[in-house]
């Protein structure tokens, strides 16, 4: 999974001129361009990639794509298919979360980290945190073990 995030970062860098000025003016056009870039990356790898821009996000211009990211395999899925909820709990605890909240109607958790929050659901993950090397490592493991997502040869 880290290869998809890194691909997104590369695409955002390569197309920065197309949205940087608009983003500095908080123009909706910038958000549309960034959304299109994320969507293209998602199509390339077979999942939904969303760069979220929540109101009041800090340092949005510098950190775009490096936090507030959603990686969705099957939005709306309610139960984990390849793993149990207790295994998912363990994965999140091993990432460093000591505060996990259940999510009504779904398996999975909202996990509080020092750098923000991860929502880990049967359909994918929402990363409301800084995407550190540890988070990338977590994504690689969880997408393989929990979502059954296979890395293309040579990507990790």
């Amino acid at each position, binding site marked *: 999974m880290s290869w998809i995030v890194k691909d997104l970062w590369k695409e955002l860098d390569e197309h920065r001129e197309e949205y940087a000025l608009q983003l500095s003016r908080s123009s909706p056009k910038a958000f549309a361009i960034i959304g299109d870039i994320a969507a293209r990356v998602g199509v390339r790898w077979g999942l939904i990639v969303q760069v979220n821009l929540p109101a009041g996000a800090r340092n949005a211009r510098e950190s775009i794509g490096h936090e507030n990211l959603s990686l969705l395999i099957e939005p709306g899925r309610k139960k984990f298919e390849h793993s149990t909820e207790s*295994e998912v709990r*363990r994965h999140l*605890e*091993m990432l460093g*979360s000591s505060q996990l909240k259940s999510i009504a109607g779904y398996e999975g958790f909202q996990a509080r980290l020092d750098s923000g929050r991860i929502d880990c659901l049967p359909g994918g993950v929402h990363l409301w945190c800084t995407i550190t090397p540890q988070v990338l490592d977590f994504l690689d*493991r969880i997408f*393989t*073990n929990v979502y059954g997502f296979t890395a293309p040869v040579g990507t990790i």
Partner: protein
Amino acid sequence: MRKVIVAVSDLFVQSRVLQIAHTQGIDAEIAETPLNLPKSTGQQLIILDLDSSDYDPYQVARQLKALASPPILFGFYPHVKADLKSRAEQVGFDHVVTNREFVSYLTRLIAEWKNESP
């Protein structure tokens, strides 16, 4: 030769342990159930899941600690089940950590262990 043995069926934990051990240059292997644990355990660090539904880690620990050359036992548990810690310590686990502490503690432990005299 020193070796880390992970007796945990969770692939995530297995891959974590193998990565930590290999990074430190220590041999590691997977025993998916304690039935596969070796009878000679000197110079071994065995990792057991204190919250396992596949086996009884406390019974396994008692058996391993009764051997002539017992291994170092390392157990981990979810912090919401704090009672598992005292149960583990009672049966002789040498190291007991929460899931959250698992990676950093094991990394430090293996680094120290490989530098200790046999």
